[in-house]
């Protein structure tokens, strides 16, 4: 039967199921297919901290949110149009995301007595039959049974078949949203072909089964069409924040002509960076799994002393362990980049959930006067630019640099227009030359006009020198306890970091007028939500602008002036007002926070409400 096709601008799908049911895989492949199909995408995986939480429980639910559209997609969406719930627990934990009237596809087999009990439904209550889901287009399928039937003539075990249910769902959704089955098939089977051709064949059979089921069953009255997005010409791929960080560092090291030394200690959500780096041995990358984060950052300093690029990435707890060593890096004035991929804290907190509560630690969490440049990435793809820029600053200014990302960016992905390596700004470290000697003697702390000291590398005759954590005498770098020298060195180090702002472009308004009623100021991963909310409010005629900061230290030189051009300043953050405090202290402006510390991203709708309220009721 040829179904009616409805054209829609975008769609949000949430795949939710038990952590063993392949929801992440299904989501990733569907996202890829959609990107290849020419849509813009944004994804948000949400998985439990436990590797194998008990099956069927609320804690064991893993989900993947995917949005694709025919315009610039900036967030994975507040709510979804389609929810796939593989069991009762998945429904219970994710139903609130589904829009009224949305499509709800459930696997009936996941709603037996045991599943219902584990999900905490009252005895003899089944949401599938008690009418409670009447607000939605409920599609009940016994996916387990359908899969069993499709694979009846294979030698696969029930367990193996159960694990492939996600493929049937993918096939069905591919039909529903007009995704090319061949692309999906290619992606899915490529994963298994070499290792297990039998599984690959079964997967591909299930994709077809799901697709045909959509076609032949009478469950759906129409199909949907999401036209291609208008994208600038170029080469595209989809990329996660962590992948983008890795590529940013690899390219930056390459541009600078240095080896990339990466040290890390496994921690969610930063481990992926270590894994990816470890795959790049043949790219002049030197990956190293250290015994702890102190070793990781220390090793990065060692590489920097040796004349190469030292990088490490971690999350809050590991970042705290690195504090002392960051102080050493400040003292040594060696280039290095430390990424803090923030997660909800303190302590182990909620290790897979995003939060922005390490900002003040990044800015101030050290002993002594130890200023360090801090940059934040705004989107998954922007992690590339941020890593590249952080490296450039570290190498140009001989300083450690902190990059802030978070669990939302790290695992989420979006579309990335791949830049040409040639188009990126050059990176030229200040290596020591004979000109840095006076009367034949090399002075490691003889600064240039910008306040930057030269980088002399072991192995170079005539430049032998000793540096360390003890305060050093200006110019010679010898140990010094002189009170005035110490004060001078503190000032020189601080002035150097402040001086960076002079080189950076002034802060611009991301969206809206450069002055007026209300500025919504953000940093980091809240970019998409804030931008979309401001866009929506502006469409309603509200006088609001969006300012998004990449540089948190030093702050852009014109920021104070820019902020003072607005009557009100609203700062939404996934913390208790870190940036708000900073802006108030720094510029004496009446910035007001909108704080959210729930381990989940800001939604566009909540921001729209806040903006409306600030404009109308303040």
């Amino acid at each position: 039967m040829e179904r009616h096709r409805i054209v829609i601008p975008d769609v949000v799908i949430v795949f939710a199921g038990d952590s063993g049911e392949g929801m992440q895989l299904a989501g990733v492949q569907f996202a890829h297919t959609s990107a290849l199909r020419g849509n813009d995408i944004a994804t948000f995986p949400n998985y439990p901290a436990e590797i194998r939480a008990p099956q069927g429980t609320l804690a064991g639910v893993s989900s993947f949110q995917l949005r694709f559209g025919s315009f610039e997609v900036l967030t994975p969406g507040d709510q979804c149009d389609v929810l796939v719930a593989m069991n009762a627990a998945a429904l219970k934990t994710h139903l609130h995301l589904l829009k009224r009237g949305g499509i709800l596809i459930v696997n009936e087999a996941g709603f037996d007595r045991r599943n219902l009990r584990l999900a905490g439904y009252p005895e003899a209550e089944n949401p599938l039959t008690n009418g409670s889901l009447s607000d939605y287009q409920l599609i009940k399928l016994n996916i387990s049974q359908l899969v069993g039937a499709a694979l009846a003539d294979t030698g696969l075990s029930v367990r193996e078949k159960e694990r492939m249910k996600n493929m049937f769902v993918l096939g069905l959704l591919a039909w529903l949203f007009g995704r090319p089955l061949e692309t999906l098939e290619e992606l899915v089977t490529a994963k298994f072909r070499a290792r297990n051709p039998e599984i690959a064949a079964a997967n591909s059979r299930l994709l077809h089964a799901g697709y045909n089921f959509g076609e032949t069953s009478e469950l759906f009255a129409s199909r949907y069409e999401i036209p291609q997005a208008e994208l600038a010409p170029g080469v595209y791929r989809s990329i996660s924040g962590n992948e983008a960080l890795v590529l940013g560092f690899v390219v930056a090291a390459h541009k600078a002509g240095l080896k990339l030394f990466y040290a890390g200690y496994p921690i969610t959500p930063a481990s992926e960076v270590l894994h990816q780096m470890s795959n790049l041995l043949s790219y002049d990358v030197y990956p190293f799994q250290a015994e702890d984060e102190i070793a990781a950052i220390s090793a990065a300093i060692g590489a920097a002393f040796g004349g190469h690029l030292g990088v490490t990435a971690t999350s809050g707890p590991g970042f705290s362990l690195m504090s002392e060593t960051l102080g050493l890096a400040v003292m040594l004035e060696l280039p290095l980049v430390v990424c803090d991929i923030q997660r909800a804290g303190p302590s182990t907190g909620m290790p897979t959930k995003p939060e922005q509560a390490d900002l003040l630690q990044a800015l101030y969490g050290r002993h002594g006067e130890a200023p360090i440049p801090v940059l934040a990435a705004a989107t998954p793809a922007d992690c590339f630019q941020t890593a590249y820029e952080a490296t450039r600053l570290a190498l140009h200014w001989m300083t450690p640099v902190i990059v802030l990302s978070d669990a939302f960016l790290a695992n989420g992905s979006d579309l990335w227009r791949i830049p040409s390596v040639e188009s990126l700004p050059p990176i030229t470290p200040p290596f020591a030359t004979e000109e840095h000697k006076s009367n034949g003697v090399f002075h490691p702390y003889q600064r240039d006009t910008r306040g930057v000291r030269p980088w002399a590398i072991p192995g170079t005759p005539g430049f032998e020198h000793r540096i360390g954590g003890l305060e050093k005498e200006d110019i010679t770098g010898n140990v010094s306890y002189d009170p005035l020298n110490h004060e001078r060195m503190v000032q020189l180090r601080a002035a150097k970091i402040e001086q960076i702002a002079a080189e950076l472009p002034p802060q611009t308004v991301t969206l809206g007028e450069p002055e007026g009623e209300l500025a919504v100021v953000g940093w980091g991963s809240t970019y998409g939500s804030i931008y979309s909310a401001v866009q929506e409010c502006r469409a309603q005629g509200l006088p609001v602008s969006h300012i998004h900061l990449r540089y948190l230290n030093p702050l852009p030189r014109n920021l104070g002036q820019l902020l003072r051009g607005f009557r009100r300043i609203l700062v939404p953050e996934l913390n208790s007002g870190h940036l708000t405090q900073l802006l108030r202290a720094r510029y004496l402006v009446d910035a007001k926070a909108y704080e959210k510390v729930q381990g989940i991203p800001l939604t566009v709708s909540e921001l729209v409400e806040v903006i409306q309220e600030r404009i109308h009721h303040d």
Partner: protein
Amino acid sequence: MTEALHPSVSAKDYASDQEVRWCPGCGDYAILKQVQTVLAELGVPRENVVFISGIGCSSRFPYYMGTYGLHGIHGRAPAIAYGLKITRPELHVWIVTGDGDGLSIGGNHLIHMLRRNMDVTILLFNNEVYGLTKGQISPTSRPGQRTPSTPWGSFEHPFNPVALAFGAGATFVARTMDRDLAHMRSVLKRAAQHRGAAFVEIYQNCPVFNDGAFFAYTEKESKPDNALFLEHGQPLVFGQNRDRGFVLEGTALRLASFSDGLPANLWIHDETDRTKAALLVQLLGTPDDGLPRPFGVLYADHTRPTYEELLAERRQHLVQHHGGGDLSALLRGKNWWTIGS
């Protein structure tokens, strides 16, 4: 060590212009001098040598060397060395640490450096006390030691650094003392030449906070009876009259005294024998128990490859099989597409 020998260099060429600031009589002076002498003897170009240290009196060492140097933070010298050695394997990296720096706050890095077997030379200055912070107990302090933090006498069980290093998988384990210059020089030279992580415990007198801690082993009168000097291929013999030694009985060391000539069954030192080394590193005699303490190279494994060698091998293998890094292919990843022209 592939550099050409610089025949004219002397110990002085390895000194920096900085005034050495240890207390008068500190054992660190002697160690500094011998390290400089050994480097001169080996003729390693100054620019290829890097000294990395942590924090402590001993860790001031790099400032006094005319080589490259990094005075790090407390306990982290081996960790700093990781990144340097991995990216610059050709450099001669020395790590200088103390019993507090290397065994307390930095114990974790020390054992992992030894396990990984990077090609570095580790000097642990053991004075059985925290010198720089004015005399508290360290992980090697002895039971009964009275210090500001143990006014009632310590009751903690100390580490035996050589046993710890051996247990951590070190491929070179040695012990020497600040007051026997010739011995120290020969051990340091062996350590410097070892391919892999060489661990040297140096008994170092701190005249200010723990004076005479090792006198039983270092002073003329008591040394012969308490110090057992090891030499590869030679029997384990000690004593004022060289009349005591060890025989191996089953898996135990037994003390043997003899009056006329060496008995035929005396233990012959074989520094490459892991089983024997396991016994030797445990031999921690004191004047009270009548047993000696071994000095010299206790264990040396010349076969295990270094971390750097293994890494280079992997890299080479990958490049051979998958080609060198193609940056644009890396950026594109597996799935990419073009929009527009």
